[in-house]
């Protein structure tokens, strides 16, 4: 997965990076156990102070998205905690708000949107209810 940061954004660099990794996990582009670049590698690749990368990793580790194995590297963690569920829910809500904003401007009614989501979601495969993915 490719990462990039922008200095014209209002979002601090460490949060941009953390957000991209979160999104990568949520979309399945980053899988459990996958190794991420080291702080040094990432710093060189993105031309960003290593402390900034370390801060992003620290935040992700706190939220249970990655785990650091001392001297080996940084890996995508097994999702299990409620913390991660909350984080994923927040990501989904952000996307949902974006979508609903568009829907309002495209002049759909609330009912139409609900119906479309219901129909469309039948095309996807979903984890069983109760079973945390």
């Amino acid at each position: 997965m490719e990462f990039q940061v922008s200095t014209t954004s209002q979002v601090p660099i460490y949060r941009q990076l953390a957000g991209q990794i979160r999104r990568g996990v949520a979309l399945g582009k980053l899988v459990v156990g996958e190794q991420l670049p080291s702080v040094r590698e990432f710093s060189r690749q993105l031309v960003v102070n290593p402390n900034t990368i370390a801060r992003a990793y620290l935040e992700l580790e706190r939220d249970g998205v990655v785990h650091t194995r001392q001297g080996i590297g940084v890996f995508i963690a097994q999702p299990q905690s409620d913390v991660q569920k909350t984080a994923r829910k927040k990501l989904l809500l952000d996307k949902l708000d974006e979508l609903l904003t568009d829907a309002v401007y495209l002049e759909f009614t609330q009912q139409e949107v609900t119906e479309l989501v219901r129909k469309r979601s039948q095309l996807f495969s979903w984890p069983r209810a109760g079973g945390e993915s």
Partner: protein
Amino acid sequence: MDAIVTDGLTKIYNGRPVVHGLTLRIPAGCVYGFLGRNGAGKSTTTRMLTGMTFPDAGTVTVLGNDSTQLSAETRARIAYIAEGHPIYKWMTVDHFLKFSRSFAHRWNHQLVEQILDYFQLSRSRKLGKLSKGQQAQVSLAAAIAPDPDLLILDDPTLGLDTVVRRDFLESLIQIIQRQGRTILFSSHILGDVERVADRIGIMVDGILRVDAPTDDFKSSIRRIVLEFTGEPPPFPDCPGVIATRVIGRKREVIVAGLTEKHKEAMESLSPLASEVLELNLEDAFIAYTRGARPAMPLFHLQADLSP
């Protein structure tokens, strides 16, 4: 250990304080972005740090030594690149490196070779014949070859094109990674500063207005926009307000650290619409330096630097 400590540092030129009561502490290993508009007092400050100019009041300690009485040993641990990379144009790259080496106690040959190699700089080229970007690379090589504990760069990317600037930043990142030494650099390119600096300081008319971790500064500056039907009323005076101005029927207020007080003040005006927006570093910097008033609040944050 702190690399740089100043207390009430002041320099007066023609009866006017160019640097006024500067109190600053930069821990060892920190990459500090020193910002301010032209004439804000940045260069005078760096000159006092390196002992090239003596303060009129206050003290300045660099690597544990008084800057006005630096020994040769301490000087050898400090590297300074002046604005515009002034170098002797008639020298070849080889001459220049040997010349620089004669002042150094230590010399990292391997590092110099790596830099020359990376930037494809030939030792036999005359400095005057090199591009501005290449001259900058040579002066960077000469500055870091003695393995300095403190590197002071006065606007090192000034006049470099976008590609060379990125190259320069990449080498700076490598230097940060290699030794964790203290770097103080001034720049007008806020994007570069955000990439490289752990902390930033903003000088406005000789006064250090901001001294905070880069991310904290960026995420605490907010732009409040209030819309009214007619002439916008004045914003109530409360702490943290940096600047405020009227644009048509809107009042714009820039605050450092949005508090309940600000929200109450917003509501008390009962605007037609209100919005709180985040700013990028450049816009935050502009808001801070353009709106400068003597009574403006200082934004000094001491925070844990460890990642």
